[in-house]
């Protein structure tokens, strides 16, 4: 499944990374503790988090994530979006909660990351 298909199905707003939306999504994870995300992270995963500071871009880049989804319409600072654009990180936004987003993605067939 591609990021663009998720955007369409969940009516997500693209905040950054518009030109990379044909990226393939492999799995999903929902967490706000960055070290936990670094430990569980998988290449091609969707990451749902309420964190919006600069470090989410670094984490997404290092893990090679498919995209980040920010729930509850939380605003993301311009400088973070600029950095994401520069690094090729897709940041999406939704008014839904993390719980609802994860549920819908799961229903669409996105599998959880493997917990080692």
């Amino acid at each position, binding site marked *: 499944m591609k990021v663009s298909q998720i955007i369409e199905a969940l009516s997500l707003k693209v905040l950054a990374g518009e030109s990379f939306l044909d990226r393939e999504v492999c799995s999903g994870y929902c967490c*706000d*503790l*960055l*070290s*936990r995300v*670094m*430990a569980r*992270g998988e*290449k091609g995963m969707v990451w749902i*988090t309420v*964190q919006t*500071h*600069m*470090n989410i*871009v*670094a*984490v997404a*880049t*290092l*893990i*090679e994530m498919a995209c980040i989804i920010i729930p509850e319409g939380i605003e993301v600072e311009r400088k973070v979006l600029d950095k994401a654009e520069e*690094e090729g990180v897709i940041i999406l936004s939704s008014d839904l909660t993390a719980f609802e987003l994860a549920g819908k993605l799961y229903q669409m067939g996105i599998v959880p990351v493997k917990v080692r």
Partner: protein
Amino acid sequence: MTGGYYSIEQVFHVKAGDFASAGEASSQIKKILKQLGIDSTLVRRVSIAAYEAEMNLVIHSVGGELKLKVTPQSIVVTAEDKGPGIPDIDLAMQEGYSTAPEIARELGFGAGMGLPNIKRCADRLNIQSKVGEGTLLEIYFDIKAR
């Protein structure tokens, strides 16, 4: 790997408490390793370990250096600081144990998984610390011949 001979050393300065540019050094390290044509799984392992080491310098130290050394046989990431040092290394290695300050926790750090993450990614780990003097963390990765 193409088997070509090279040896690279690069030093990155990491400022204490600088959360805004934190992650820059490890992102650079990742780019360098990719350019060298290192296997992508190994690049990910090194990048994750480097990121955790960089964050440890930002969160816990008075500032320090992150160093990357690449030879045809191995990759070594070194994090060195001038303090404050780790009183109990065994405790620091325990998953879930963290001494991160509130400001770091608010940003989603301080899960107590930094050093355990580094250990899991590395082939070998050497950590020396003295309270009041500083910490030296050496993270070793083997490059396996194909």
